[in-house]
């Protein structure tokens, strides 16, 4: 997954587990950028009676680096507060929730947002979870009412959304037997697997999204349109179970427990032994992890798992040459002069951030392969909801982007075809045409059906 349950420690703490980050120039509001951080992986829509919610004890942040040092220059902080209106019922709601102020809604969550200038908003309503047609009869309307205009061109939303990330988890983590290519897999001497279409393991699940739309001018420095974006979740250092009160007591300063910038980095690039450490550090400290990017384990695995399919990649791996192409794409941005008319370079500091050149307008006809597909408004220039980041990163790791730094290198034919067999059409919930863009979450009554 992009970053769902990607490290040993955070996999035990889903409320603080960041799953995806999106950053793009808003297609319907081109003077602004939309930044989205998703949390709580794999929410089963019918997961009541205690439906999913943000952690009141978690500090959620979306960070922006606008001078290329890998440190946050602007941070938007989100803190949540939950109120139980009637502690004498087991129900999440005691009747239909027809408005955010409904007395039938028993467990209400609000939040505050702060930015560089201080508090931007407080007491802001989250929508409830999408329970079902009797409990949340007009869910789309409820959620729309939870989009808050904070003034100054800033809008926020925090609440449940349909998972937009698509990935064939079952195939990828079954020793990368990508279904469209399964007939070419080595299979370790076990019976072969016929090729077939991909299966979207993250379809019909929800996440909790924190979305903020801000003017480009508020997050960039004059003459420097490229920003680096990432999210973090932090917890206080001490959590103590108060057995007398039946709840946790938290104390001490907040410390980072989750981080996410580019998709799939801690998931499939960073090795198991460093994943928890990676989650605790800012991007500015990523030099120590650079070898995972320049010598990715997956690049060495592909020729082994698919014998004879990736001979040129195998030779590249054997040569020991560092993958400067991947380092540029993921850790510094692509310098000018590499791809005609394009750059999202932030400087020499090696830092995993989702880099977005905000001077590139949203595409009228987006290509799901982003920059690889000739669309500079897509990943790795930021990330849009429908970008096929799994295929893009698979292809890049397989060598498709290596000619950017060595024109003599010829990628294997299969490298440019790699996919887990999915596209944005594999997601049942359609995205919205406006902020917060992610689709209406799947309802508990109808999912599973």
């Amino acid at each position: 997954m992009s970053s769902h349950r990607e490290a040993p420690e955070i996999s035990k703490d889903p409320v603080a587990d960041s799953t995806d980050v999106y950053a793009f120039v808003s297609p319907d509001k081109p003077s602004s950028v939309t930044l989205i951080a998703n949390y709580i992986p794999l929410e089963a829509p019918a997961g009541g009676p205690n439906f999913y919610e943000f952690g009141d004890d978690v500090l959620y942040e979306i960070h922006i680096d606008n001078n290329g040092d890998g440190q946050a220059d602007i941070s938007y902080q989100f803190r949540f507060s939950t109120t139980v209106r009637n502690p004498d019922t087991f129900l999440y709601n005691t009747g239909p929730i027809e408005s955010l102020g409904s007395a039938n809604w028993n467990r209400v969550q609000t939040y505050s947002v702060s930015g560089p200038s201080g508090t931007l908003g407080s007491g802001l309503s989250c929508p409830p979870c999408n329970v079902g047609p009797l409990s949340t009869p007009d869910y789309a309307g409820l959620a729309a009412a939870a989009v808050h205009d904070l003034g100054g061109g800033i809008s926020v939303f925090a609440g449940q959304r349909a998972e937009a990330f698509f990935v064939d988890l079952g195939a990828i983590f079954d020793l990368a037997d990508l279904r469209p290519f399964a007939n070419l897999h080595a299979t370790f001497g076990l019976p072969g697997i016929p090729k077939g279409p991909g299966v979207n393991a993250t379809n019909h699940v929800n996440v909790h999204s924190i979305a903020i739309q801000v003017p480009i001018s508020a997050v960039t420095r004059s003459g420097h349109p490229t920003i680096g974006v990432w999210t973090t979740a932090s917890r206080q250092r001490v959590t103590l179970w108060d057995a007398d009160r039946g709840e946790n007591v938290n104390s001490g300063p907040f410390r980072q427990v989750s981080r996410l910038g580019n998709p799939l980095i801690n998931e499939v690039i960073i090795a198991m032994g460093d994943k928890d450490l990676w989650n605790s550090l800012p991007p500015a400290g990523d030099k120590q992890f650079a070898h995972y990017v320049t010598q990715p384990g997956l690049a060495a695995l592909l020729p082994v798992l698919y014998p004879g399919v990736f001979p040129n990649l195998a030779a590249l791996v054997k040569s020991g040459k560092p993958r400067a192409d991947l380092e540029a794409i993921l850790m510094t941005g692509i310098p000018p002069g590499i791809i005609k008319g394009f750059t999202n370079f932030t400087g020499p500091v090696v830092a995993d951030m989702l880099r977005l050149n905000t001077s590139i307008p949203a595409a009228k006809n987006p290509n799901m392969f982003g920059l690889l597909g000739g669309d500079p408004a897509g990943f790795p220039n930021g990330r849009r909801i429908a970008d096929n980041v799994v295929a893009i990163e698979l292809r890049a790791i397989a060598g498709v982007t290596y000619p950017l730094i060595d024109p003599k290198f010829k990628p294997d034919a299969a490298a440019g075809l790699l996919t887990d067999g999915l596209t944005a059409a594999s997601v049942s919930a359609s995205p919205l045409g406006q902020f917060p863009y992610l689709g209406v979450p799947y309802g508990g009554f109808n999912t599973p059906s």
Partner: protein
Amino acid sequence: MPSDDTQSSPAMGVSRRSVIRGAATAGAAGLAVTAFGAALSPAAAASTRAASSTGAAADAEVKAPAGPIVVHVRNAKAGDIEVFSGTSQTRLRDKDLAARIARAIG
């Protein structure tokens, strides 16, 4: 001589003295301090009484935090102690205090 490392939270004024004072006012400070107070007993009781008897001036200069105080003895032998309150933390090096806590739970 105990040393207080208050670099991370000077504003909170959490020190060894305030920890002991917190233990003495466990009712207001909640579980963590209650547990700590129990850990200190009976040795802490003597210390607390001693602290109380040293005068009202000390009471005036140390404000006990409103919330719980949590004490983490990282290394009892070295006297390495962390004290948490609110969103602050303080690192103490106090072999005597650590030893008394260790004895209390032993």
